[in-house]
């Protein structure tokens, strides 16, 4: 039996929204090479909504699928809605993740949240936007 669901395999092999955004409004980086997964999320915000979400990920099949799924779930959502994306919701949308991968690979929501933090802190400092 394969370790990954069909949905995970689909997002792993055809990841959505891979890449970087030029002049992003926020960047969120999580992970480290010791655990094996690293994700960087880039966001573009317009009228309090995530107009664009892109990512780059170093990691296993689950990490790539999670990144892709989070980007898809987040696009078009308000910042408040996007904050409500939890690792469990991501795993559910992916029709499950292997038990041992749930924590280490499921960093997408955290990376997205960090990108939102980055955007808000820039905004509060009165930078661009």
């Amino acid at each position: 039996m394969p370790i990954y669901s069909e949905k995970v395999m689909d997002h792993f092999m055809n990841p959505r929204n891979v890449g970087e955004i030029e002049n992003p409004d926020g960047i969120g980086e999580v992970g480290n090479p010791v655990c094996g997964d690293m994700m960087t999320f880039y966001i573009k915000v317009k009228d309090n909504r995530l107009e664009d979400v892109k990512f780059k990920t170093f990691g296993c099949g689950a990490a790539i699928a999670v990144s892709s799924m989070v980007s898809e779930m987040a696009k078009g959502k308000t910042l408040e809605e996007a904050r409500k994306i939890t690792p469990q919701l991501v795993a559910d949308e992916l029709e499950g993740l292997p038990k041992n991968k749930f924590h280490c690979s499921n960093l997408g929501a955290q990376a997205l949240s960090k990108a939102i933090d980055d955007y808000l802190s820039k905004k509060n400092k009165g930078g661009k936007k």
Partner: protein
Amino acid sequence: MRQVYLDNAATTPLLPEVREAMLPYLGELFGNPSCLHSWGDAAREAVERAREQVAQLIGAEAEEIIFTGSGTESNNFAIKGLALAQQAKGKHVVVSAVEHFSVLYSARTLEKWGFELTLVPVDKYGVVDPDEVRRNLRKDTILVSVMHANAEVGTIEPIEEIARITRENGILFHTDAVATAGTIPVKVKELGVDTLSLAGNQFYGPKGVGALWVRKGVRIIPLLDGGVQEGGRRAGTENVPAIVGLGKAAELARMDMPARIKHLTHLRDRLLTELPRKIERVVVTGHPQNRLPGNASFCVEFIEGESMLMWLNSQGVAVTSGSACTSRALKASHVLLAMGLPHALAQGSILFTLGLDNTDEDIDYVLEVLPPIVDRLRQMSPLYAKFTKAGKGGK
């Protein structure tokens, strides 16, 4: 789609001749070798024939061979059994840092039982320096264990030299030859060791069977009590079909070894030389020359091994990786880390282990399908983005 199996270190397939030899013992010849009737006689004869075959493979006496359930069991048996037999003499054990977990964690268990453990480091190729072993010996050292070759990186260790040192000091020496027995020449007298492990599924025999060779006169405490099988050193009804298969596989390996080595070395060298030409920033892991004939191991920079493995699998190619994500425990290969590789590079581990069925066309296919996979994964890797930006920025 082409199917290319390149994970022979995990297990080799069963040779048809081996399967044929086993079949009667899964059928009408079902007897228990311990029994005194003719059913028992037939089974006992088969087990003893297999013992001869395995002994011949490694240049040993049949009575020195103990059949076990796996290479892992053989290693557990040697490390724990020898240490327990020697504990009145001392409680210090020395093993290399790149041993298989069945040696490493047996030694860890000894620590829990009150023994002391020293891990001997390796160089960047994974080679154990015999002088380093010598420096770590103490008056109370009772056992040294260094593997004959490392299956993950292919490096062959200087067992003869280490054995000279242990012999001079009257210390027992175990070698885990699971990666070498049946693959390259393994002669116990030349190696100079006291015990040696091997496993059937590493040389086209069945899974679930191994052997431990114990030099005549060496004391070992059994792990399994309660029966007189295997000279009272390993209780439990023998896995007769598997033992017969192991014996047949040993016989075939002994006869075909030079041709097998030639075949595997050719394919291995193609991968070792051609893959780094096709993909930038790839490093060969393990010793460049002194390595197992079927082992081509690499680390691919900026990407992670499991994602390479999954992609290759989708193209019909089976490989393995020492990355953290590939292991159930989510830890990067202790072998690669002991060789001093940084974590990020170790995560890009990919291991091709070749077998008798592989052809030049298989290698062509891998060399064709892997570069686009690497490229694709690098395009989504934040590490590769940093690397290319640093390059373009002129540092």
